[in-house]
């Protein structure tokens, strides 16, 4: 109510209750809507907690670093999925971030004006393609390409740990690639806004100091955008961590921990999507929910961490 008294109403009418009653109704309605969000969030937390309690009661916290997942033997360790999620997401970030930042920079600063809007539109359209379509396209396009790459690489450099094992096509590498393409529009469109927000005079000031265009971009635009770029990358990471359908179709779905990108594997999201329909025992169901809980916690930590980094940088830079 304080803000209503302070800002909305002139001093003279603040004491009239009939003026305030309509504002009050509006305020209550907004509060109600906000409450729905909070209730939704807490109900998810409670659901995850209570559903996964039986499993955690049996396995303890070692569930999160157990390496073996064997529902038939009632053995549940989530580490392979945590590992798979982190590897595929990291790979996706590594591949997508430079491309996204580069294309956003091109579109905001270098591209001729007639090219900017259509290209930006095209990139944003990538985000509108359903995940399952990405999965299908991945199976027919990415997987054969990855397989060819894997075969050729092993022929040329031999058996290196990062690319050892049978060249199957499906696996961490294919899943990381499809994730990279999927998070590209998220990172690129946020970066585009970040670069667009840098005042032109900063760029011009660098030019007047005798900078070339590239130097001016680096000094005045890129460096000023570091916090924004980090935010963009985090949003991309958030999407990659939780992405389910396309990854499930390409990752191979075996609970394996391997340093090789050629290896098949599974992610937290993919194991839930794969096994939930066929989960026979209550304990198996509980284990899958616990994986969901882990995914939730990791996503939360990533977001908090990124927020912290953003705030840290902004403060350091004097924003």
């Amino acid at each position, binding site marked *: 109510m304080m803000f209503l008294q302070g800002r909305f109403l002139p001093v003279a009418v603040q004491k009239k209750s009939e003026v305030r009653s309509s504002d009050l109704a509006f305020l209550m309605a907004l509060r109600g809507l906000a409450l729905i969000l909070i209730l939704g969030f807490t109900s998810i937390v409670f659901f995850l907690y209570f559903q996964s309690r039986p499993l955690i009661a049996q396995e303890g916290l070692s569930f999160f670093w157990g390496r073996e997942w064997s529902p038939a033997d009632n053995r549940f360790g989530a580490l392979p999925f945590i590992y798979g999620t982190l590897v595929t997401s990291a790979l996706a970030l590594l591949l997508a971030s430079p491309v996204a930042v580069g294309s956003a920079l091109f579109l905001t600063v270098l591209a*001729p*004006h007639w090219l900017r809007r259509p290209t930006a539109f095209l990139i944003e359209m990538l985000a509108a393609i359903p995940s399952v379509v990405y999965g299908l396209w991945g199976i027919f396009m990415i997987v054969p390409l990855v397989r060819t790459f894997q075969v050729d690489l092993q022929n040329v450099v031999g058996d290196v740990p990062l690319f050892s094992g049978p060249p199957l096509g499906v696996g961490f590498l294919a899943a990381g690639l499809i994730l990279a393409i999927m998070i590209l529009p998220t990172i690129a469109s946020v970066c585009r806004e970040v670069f667009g927000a*840098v*005042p032109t*005079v*900063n760029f*011009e*000031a*660098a*030019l*007047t*100091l*005798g*900078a*070339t265009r590239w*130097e001016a971009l680096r*000094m*005045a635009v890129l*460096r*000023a955008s*570091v916090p924004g770029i980090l935010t963009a990358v985090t949003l991309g990471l958030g999407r990659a961590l939780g992405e389910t359908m396309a990854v499930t179709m390409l990752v191979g779905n075996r609970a394996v921990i391997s340093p090789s990108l050629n290896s098949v594997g599974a992610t937290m999201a993919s194991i839930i999507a794969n096994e939930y329909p066929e989960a026979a025992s209550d304990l198996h169901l509980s284990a899958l929910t616990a994986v969901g809980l882990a995914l939730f916690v990791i996503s939360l930590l990533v977001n908090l961490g990124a927020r912290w980094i953003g705030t840290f940088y902004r403060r*350091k*830079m*004097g*924003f």
Partner: protein
Amino acid sequence: MNLGVQMGGEELSLEKVSAFFGKKEIVKSVSFDVANREVMALIGPSGCGKSTLLRCINRLHEETPGAWVRGRIQLKNLDIYGPAVDPVEIRSHIGMVFQKPNPFPGFSIFENVVAGLTIRGVRKRSYLADVAERSLRAAALWDEVKDILKAPGLSLSGGQQQRLCIARAIAVNPSLLLMDEPTSALDPISTAKIEELLFDLKKNVTILIVTHNLQQAARISDQVAFMYLGDLVEVGSTAQIFTKPTNVQTENYITGRFG
């Protein structure tokens, strides 16, 4: 390129300079000379082409898509629009201070001042420190920031930021300093400080300043050029323009009848 200082000679010479955005002529065939270590003020109502003219002189105008320039501009003896001339090289001999203070975000005070040198690959710490101190002293900012050189440039007040930008512009030792309404975003005290600073700066550098503030023009300049609707209406010594202008439009403007 010979840009050695010649005492007394002409620093800058404009000959029939026109500036365009597409087909629109913003500056119409302007000619004038500025002598070495002189302060010239460009005055005139908003939209008369003062800033655009300023941006022609360091070849910044052409960075805007569709913008182009006709005519001849000589810095010392160099035709800056000559075919063999690199705009990047030209700009490094001409400093510019903008309307709003614009220190680089993410750069410390120190990094801001020496930015023009680090671009050119100067890395020697002692030399940079030396230049930073000299420039900050020249910009009358040293005493206020000497203990916080590592703080972000953006953490300073508006007036300090503008003096930081002046320090940044003069750190590369330009012979000409362009100022585009450098005090219009500042409070009166910060404005007074910067005007005071200009008196010291003009001992070493020629200054071309765009201003809306006629008192400011009267206080700081040796010569005044009055522009209106893209034309150069009158140019003359400050005393002459403000006491007996020959053109009736100039008289109307400086007496506050329009603009």
